[in-house]
């Protein structure tokens, strides 16, 4: 919590402070606090429906909390005017769960899209940058394919090339491992690691797959019921010291996360006599 340090490298890139968000009457975040360290791979894990993707949307300013703040590189995202927010977003890469490639454009134009929108680069320079990024994800040969012709794993790699086309300071991966076969999964894992280790891009990934997270993440935050319930290196969390980690990483049916969705007692649902509904 001491962010008065003059050394900016020591200040976490993303600081979430007391974030409280209510969506449709449900408290998604309840005074959530967490930090994303610079130059590391941080995984955010938790049971389905705990608002992991929602947290990413708070970091990019697509959603705002009802209380608390989200600081990205020292700036309060919710208070930024639109122009400054857009300038900030140019420095953040976001990998959507369903890749979200623009269906009207081919692979090359999808990757070139941010460059064409925000720069006045010469065509041959754009070409060089785009082909370099596509080469990095191994899809230079697919430059002229349309998004509808790509497999899920290929689309995700194209989306990744698009996300890094501006050499961002931060990449947010929303469920990067879902629906991938083991080969594609390894390719994506390797890419995440390479981008982080070689380019020093701070990476945040939201995922369920602990086996995959273990391979890349330096740090894991486990969130449940709107709060951060555990943090640490994957190895520390795997030991399962708290009931949360024990249930989540052990996959037990019962624990702090109940198997049953909240409901009135079974007897009253069946209408047994003598039980008030």
């Amino acid at each position: 919590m001491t962010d008065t340090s003059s050394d900016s490298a020591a200040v976490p890139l993303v600081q979430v402070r007391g974030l409280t968000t209510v969506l449709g009457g449900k408290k998604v975040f309840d005074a959530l606090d967490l930090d994303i360290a610079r130059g590391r791979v941080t995984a955010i894990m938790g049971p389905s429906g705990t608002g992991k993707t929602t947290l990413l949307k708070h970091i990019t300013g697509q959603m705002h909390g009802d209380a608390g703040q989200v600081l990205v590189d020292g700036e309060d995202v919710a208070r930024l005017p639109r122009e400054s927010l857009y300038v900030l977003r140019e420095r953040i890469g976001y990998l959507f769960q369903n890749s979200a490639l623009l269906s009207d454009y081919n692979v090359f134009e999808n990757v070139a899209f941010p460059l064409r929108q925000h720069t006045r680069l010469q065509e041959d320079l754009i070409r060089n940058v785009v082909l370099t990024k596509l080469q990095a994800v191994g899809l230079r040969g697919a430059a002229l394919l349309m998004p509808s012709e790509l497999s899920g794993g290929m689309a995700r790699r194209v989306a990744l090339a698009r996300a890094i086309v501006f050499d961002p300071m931060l990449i947010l991966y929303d469920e990067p491992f879902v629906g991938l076969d083991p080969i594609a999964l390894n390719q994506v894992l390797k890419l995440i690691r390479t981008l982080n280790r070689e380019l020093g891009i701070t990476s945040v990934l939201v995922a369920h797959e602990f086996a995959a997270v273990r391979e890349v993440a330096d740090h894991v935050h486990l969130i449940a019921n709107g709060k951060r319930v555990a943090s640490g290196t994957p190895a520390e969390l795997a030991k399962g010291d708290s009931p949360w980690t024990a249930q989540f990483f052990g996959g037990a049916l019962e624990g702090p996360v109940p198997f049953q969705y909240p409901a009135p007692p079974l007897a009253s649902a069946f209408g047994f006599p003598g039980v008030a509904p």
Partner: protein
Amino acid sequence: MKQFAARLFDPLVDGLADIGRTGWFLLGLLAALPRGLTYPRELLRQLWFVGAKSLIIIMISGLFVGMVLSLQLYYTLSIFGGTSALGTVIALSLYRELGPVVTALLFAGRAGTAITAEVGLMRATDQLSAMEMMAVDPLAFVASPRFLAGVIAMPLLVAVFNLMGIFGGHLIGVTWLGIDNGTFWSNMTSNVSVWTDVINGEWKALAFGALISLIAVYQGYTAPPTSEGVANATTRTVVTSSIAILALDFVMTAFLM
């Protein structure tokens, strides 16, 4: 009783709320329009998509409407012995009323639904969010070009529709029913005024074009990101635009008389 009243008035309240939200959307859209003009390639693509690709259906429909008009009006005029006015009556019906309205209804069915479905799917597949994340305003990049294309394309399509209608009317009236060719044209040219009749119709076309593309883009933009949501939005585009066109047509006719 209370429930019955609620069921009766709920759609009305929903409808009014939707009109209000569409109005708000229009304000945002108009604010983004100048930035939308910085994407001329998108505008051209959309003009091709909603304008050029609607040409065939507009031309065929115009031809048949003109042919039917010719048959029906010939019958009506023959009661009064005024069949020589056929050319005038066909042209006035088309320019003042049928051209803009029928073209608008066809445009809503052909282009409006396509815009809603496309934008709705872009929403459902996170393409609009992705643009926001790449610091590109989807109102400027996606909504504005589609809106503008509708506004530009409608008056041109109406002109084509009218042309085909008069051609069809001439085909039946002169070639088939045997009205004198000179009478047909000279009556028409002396009684149809460019400034009141033709231009009034084009004002309507412009207004309908803006209305349809606004409704289509709004419905797509706000469609729930599910297949059911996109399907419902597409239906709503047709229903809402059709009613709005006919209502606005009455108002505009009353004021432009």
